[in-house]
């Protein structure tokens, strides 16, 4: 589904990603861990097409297409979704309007019919219940004044509505209490399907107790320095990243 080959990326002239190789197949869940500043969010943003990142080498194939060639919205239309580490507040933009517009934009791109107001409301209420998002937040401006947990639930709601082929969750678990963490994990597990892949970027092994990844990668200094199975999480929990960094430097 996704094949990243030797991806190199600079921000303001500084190389952040120094050759990333990663292959994700349909049905798989990959976890990406690593110290702060190692380039996890950069990788997520480059895949989603955010401005300000210069790809200086390598390529990315998504569902048989050159991903880096596509506009941001085209990536979303093809089924890429990024749950952001810091969801943006959009004062004055109604959450329901936003959800409906994005759902219909994605549906149109898939050649499906737009959803009418009644059908949409039914769907959004059901999904909001699933991710335990207070319905009052649907009527408010997108993320404006939301708590950290509410913002993350709102991201998961968007993912559940848009039903992407590949979802990247960038530290969706950071700053959450145990209840919110469970909700996020449940949201992710609900999305698991043979047609869909997930990349879960996380800082903590805690989330991986609820979401069992098929593969785990450690990103450090702009490279994937180690890959393994889910048991790697426990090793990282006990030993930290130091030994990997040393191994890699050696």
């Amino acid at each position, binding site marked *: 589904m996704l094949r990243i080959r030797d991806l190199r990326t600079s921000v303001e002239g500084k190389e952040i990603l120094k050759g990333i190789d990663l292959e994700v197949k349909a049905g798989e869940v990959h976890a990406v861990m690593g110290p702060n500043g190692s380039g996890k969010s950069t990788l997520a943003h480059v895949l*989603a097409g955010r*401005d300000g990142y210069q790809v200086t080498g390598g390529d990315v194939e998504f569902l048989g297409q050159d991903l880096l060639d596509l*506009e941001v919205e085209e990536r979303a239309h093809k089924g890429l979704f990024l749950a*952001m580490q810091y969801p943006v507040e959009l004062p*004055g933009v109604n959450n329901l309007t936003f959800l409906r517009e*994005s759902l219909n934009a*994605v549906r149109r791109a898939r050649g499906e019919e737009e959803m009418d107001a009644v059908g949409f409301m039914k769907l959004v209420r059901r999904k909001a219940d699933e991710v335990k998002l207070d319905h009052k937040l649907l009527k408010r*401006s997108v993320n404006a004044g939301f708590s950290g947990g509410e913002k993350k639930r709102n991201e998961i709601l*968007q993912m559940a509505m*848009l039903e992407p082929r590949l979802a990247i969750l960038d530290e969706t678990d950071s700053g959450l209490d145990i209840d919110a963490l469970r909700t996020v994990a449940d949201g992710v597990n609900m999305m698991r399907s043979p047609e869909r892949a997930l990349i879960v970027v996380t800082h903590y092994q805690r989330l991986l107790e609820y979401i069992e990844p098929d593969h785990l990668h450690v990103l450090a200094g702009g490279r994937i320095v180690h890959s393994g199975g889910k048991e790697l999480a426990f090793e990282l929990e006990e030993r930290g990243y130091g030994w990997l960094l040393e191994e890699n430097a050696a």
Partner: protein
Amino acid sequence: MTLQSQAVSDFQKATQHYIAGLPLDRGAWLTDHRWSAVTRFSDLGFPDKRQEAWRYTSIEGLLKQGFVTSDSDMEVVGTEFEHHFLDGPTAGRVVFVDGAFQPSLSDTHVPGVRINNLRSAMETSDLETLKSVGTLSGPGTHGFSALNMATMRDGALIRVSAGLRLDAPIDLVSISTSSASGRAMRPRHLIVLEQDAEATLVERYLSTSDNAYFTNLVCEVLLEERASLVHQRVQQESPSAYHLADLHIELQADASYRGVNLAIGGAWSRTKIGNSFAAPGASCELHGLYLAGEGQLVDFHLDVDHGVPGCDSRENFRGILYGNGRAVFDGRILVQKQAQKSSAHLSNANLMLSRRAEIDTKPQLEILADDVMCSHGTTVGQIDPQALFYLRSRGLSEERARRLLCLGFASEILEQFESGSLQDHLAELIQQKIGSETKGAS
């Protein structure tokens, strides 16, 4: 002769001719007012850029256009005006077409509300109604408002009885048709809310053509003790029109005024809102949204005068500028020495969609009292790239995302137009107007 002095003499002649030609039964009562306004006009002439309040707003184009001929009895072209009326229940409707009151389109029978028009009040010498006309505006604060007083012909006169609470808005709509082309219309409205009265007034200026004409309007609002008015104003003139509005508000003790102004039409528009507190305990809120695109100028001047203690004022204006659109925002608050315990807050935010657009924003707080709460803030910014990325990453096209963000920026002001259908309609207008401009920054 300069353009200015030529124009002054042209207007003097036309105005004297106009007044002299008025039949005795039509406005004779106001003739004294008119002549003193002519004198005033001769003294003031037209404003020019040497005056601080007109520094950024040239009237050259307006004078070149002339508009010396004012509204006389024009034939009303077209009869389909109903779709311009407000949706939903209303407590009275006052319709003007090309400056003239339209009895057949209006609904003036509202118990407890006296709805009249200036022309018929003059014809019937209704002194009770007419006596308040001009009490706030005087003979004119600049040449244009003096001309309004000298040649005013029609306008709405609305008086809401003491203690009456209207639960539906009064619809005051002025529609210009192609007959207005090349002419000046000089409407004058007077709105009085007696003690404890509560009302909502929706005041709109629309056009059925894209011709050039000039609306030179004066509106006086008097709120007696504890009266409360929500005043929703929409300037949606033809794209070639000139629009000059002078709004005078006076608040008696504990009265409250909440105004929202949308300026979206016209080639050149300027709205001056002056508020004075006559007694303590009153509050005045002014909200506004202006849009200016290619070839457009929009100007708002606010002048809030705290002359007595214990009043609150709050101004919140936002602007969206694109193409080579220009806007002027001048928010002046004066808190006089004796006006202790005043609260005055002013905010102006501007969203620039193009590098060629221009804004001159100037908050002026003059605070002479020491026990007051005052603040002001001004911002000029662009569309937030992070917000744009966020929306696009959810599948919205760049154009759609920009539009949504513009509407989001406007929504805080649009919400002041309480009616949902009016809000939707205005949001739609805004989208159409900025439509192509949101395709990309130029």
